[in-house]
């Protein structure tokens, strides 16, 4: 019985199928999946860097608060005097942090993609900062609190630097003025 092209294909559909792929496909796939699992955190950071950055801030804050809860009983009431080095550090870091925040805030909110809570968390004087500041006032000579405060400043600076770098790479700079400022920064 004569057949036309389409009906021939339909009637012999199975004969057009070849055996499956060689085992090398699964082997390569498995290696890729294993590698992908190891690199999944890095990959996640790459794709969702901003969310990851905010999460990092929250984690740092949580870690600092935990640190205080754990070591509070060890704290000694030191002399209630202002330590000059801490005052200098506060001025130095606050200025640098505020400069970077100014650059970040110059970007439109839609480019930042952060809600108000996340933006608040990026600010210098967030809840963690205030807690540290109070602790420092009450225990000005306590080495642990001073160390935690400095570390807080440093981590915040590192995070803001990272955010600025990413913003610079991904978006056009907001204004000529701030672009120049940013370029001077890096």
């Amino acid at each position, binding site marked *: 019985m004569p057949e036309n092209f389409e009906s021939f294909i339909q009637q012999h559909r199975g004969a*057009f199928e*070849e055996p499956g792929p060689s085992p090398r496909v699964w082997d390569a796939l*498995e290696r890729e999946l*294993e590698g992908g699992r190891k690199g999944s955190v890095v990959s996640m950071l790459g794709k969702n860097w901003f969310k990851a950055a905010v999460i990092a801030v929250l984690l740092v804050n949580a870690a600092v608060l935990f640190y205080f809860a754990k070591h509070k009983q060890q704290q000694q009431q030191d002399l209630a005097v202002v330590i000059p080095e801490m005052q200098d550090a506060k001025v130095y870091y606050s200025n640098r942090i505020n400069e970077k925040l100014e650059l970040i805030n110059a970007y439109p909110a839609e480019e930042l993609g952060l809600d108000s809570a996340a933006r608040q968390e990026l600010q210098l004087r967030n809840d963690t900062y205030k807690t540290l500041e109070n602790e420092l006032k009450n225990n000005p000579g306590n080495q642990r609190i001073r160390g935690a405060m400095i570390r807080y400043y440093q981590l915040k600076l590192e995070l803001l630097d990272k955010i600025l770098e990413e913003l610079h790479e991904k978006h056009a700079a907001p204004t000529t003025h701030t672009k120049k400022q940013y370029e001077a920064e890096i």
Partner: protein
Amino acid sequence: MKASANNLNQTQLDGNVIDRCKRGDVRAFRELYNAYAAAMYNICLRMTGNVSDAEDTLQEAFIQVHRNIGKLEREASVTAWIKRIVVNHCLNNLRKKKVYFEEVEEVEVAEEAGIDEDSFTWTVSAVKSAIHGLPQGYRTVLNLYLFEEYSHREIADMMGITESTVKTQYMRAKEKVRQIVKQQNLIR
């Protein structure tokens, strides 16, 4: 095992394989791969035309399946979902090789009015060989329509060309296959 994507029966998979895949279970993913690899490989082979490219494309497609399986909402549609990923990978790889689908219209196929199909014999090997010899654009349209059973509209959307172009290319591809098979009949 030979299995076409259209005949794939999802009962080959345990009910919870997809759930386990979503939880990152590599053994479950292996089960999923085993169930679909042959059918999807055949799609790749038809689309790319050679074993090496077909295997590479299959691997890339399954990496994407693995990455995105968490987004699969309706498990009943897993076959169509995987097949679409595979086909899209094939088309993307063809585009990377600078295959411009819209240009295949320009390939001349001399139409032989009323080829008498009764006068020659269709064989699987002759048809396979004829399809393999088609220009890439014709072959893509013909494979997607005839073997993967996508509609002209779906093919047009996937390839980024108009539906009428798809129809024209399909008709010409069919004509070309007829001519090649007829010539093979004459040679024998």
